[in-house]
């Protein structure tokens, strides 16, 4: 029996079990579902307030929401350091800029990959805020509460994700996945 933290990968079922139990813990101790994107929304809102206070005053967002450094902000910070420690213990550090599957299809251009990452991620976050949740907030925390909104969101994002990826990569160019 080796130290499990030195292993690069755990069974997906074990990881799923762990996330399920972690969600009990989050509900019971902090009265919060696991979610990532609210922290980004509040962070961006606080940056906006700092650099354009007069614009922020006229935006009704700030009368309906009070952005703050919260449990969710620290959850995001924790995810970063948790993954940092986990990958350091197992030697699973990957300083990838252009992932292999991307390079096979779109070439080795660093600028191309980083531009797509920036705007893809921006679009994803914008969608998450429209729907008020992401893979964690809707996909796991919402569906496990059997929320109607979360099931609609999850089915749609999985469906469009599959269509987009198949259009981008086809089923052929990915034999080495």
């Amino acid at each position, binding site marked *: 029996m080796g130290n499990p933290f030195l292993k*690069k990968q*755990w069974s*997906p079922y074990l*990881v*799923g*079990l*762990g996330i*399920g139990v*972690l969600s009990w813990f989050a509900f*019971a*101790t902090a*009265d919060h579902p696991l979610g*990532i994107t609210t922290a*980004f929304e509040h962070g*961006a*809102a606080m940056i*906006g307030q700092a650099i354009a206070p007069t614009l922020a005053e006229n*935006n*009704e*967002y700030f009368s309906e929401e009070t952005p*703050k450094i*919260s449990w*969710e902000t620290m959850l995001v910070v*924790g*995810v970063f350091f*948790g*993954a*940092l420690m986990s990958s350091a213990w197992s030697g699973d550090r*990957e300083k*990838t800029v*252009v*992932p292999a*599957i991307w390079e096979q299809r779109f070439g080795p251009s660093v600028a191309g990959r980083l531009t797509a*990452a920036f705007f*893809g*991620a*921006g*679009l*994803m976050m*914008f*969608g*998450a805020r429209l*729907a008020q*949740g992401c*893979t964690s907030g809707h996909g796991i925390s919402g*569906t*496990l509460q*059997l929320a*109607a*909104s979360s099931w609609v*969101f999850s089915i*749609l994002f999985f*469906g*469009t*994700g*599959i269509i*987009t*990826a198949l259009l981008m990569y086809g089923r052929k160019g*990915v034999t080495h*996945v």
Partner: protein
Amino acid sequence: MFDPTWKLALGLVTGLVFGVLLQKGGVAKFRIIVGQFILKDWTVVKIMGSAVVVGAIGIYGLLALDLVSLHIKPLAWAGIVAGGILFGIGMAVFGYCPGTSVAACGEGRRDAMVGVLGMIFGAGAYVGFYPTIHRFTESLGNGGKVTLPEVTGTSPWLWIVALATVAVVAYLLTRSGIRSPRETSPASSGLGDGKMPRHPANV
């Protein structure tokens, strides 16, 4: 401006565990996320499926004991539908989701770090145009904070038993389905190939 310190500390501890789980699950990797969307690697579905079944049993159990309360997001149709579509497209292009991209940054991935900047930009666009966006998200009606059992007038346990059954059957089917395609040609990975995530780490 700040949550109380105990709550911040609790968030940090919860996040650390979440980060370790996401990294050990392999979902902080571009090839696993994109592999799921092109239906070649089922790690994401396995993790999410087991998390949802285990989570639902516990949360509804704790709810019955009055130890937790539910936090349901409202069914604002336009926001949910447009959000889900844009989220899926963005996630497929980026190759990480919001939580796993933060974990991918922890793993050292440079493209995920640029993506996190993009996410702040996307969140900023939402906040900046909030008045217009809010009118849009509510434009097709709002079903409120409802659950599937409430909508259908059924017991939540009926849904949980059904979900657990689907999960167990899917697990058993993929387990028994591994052998034949694998032994004949290891290169062609079938849809339900239960061992797919265990490939060598060649990025």
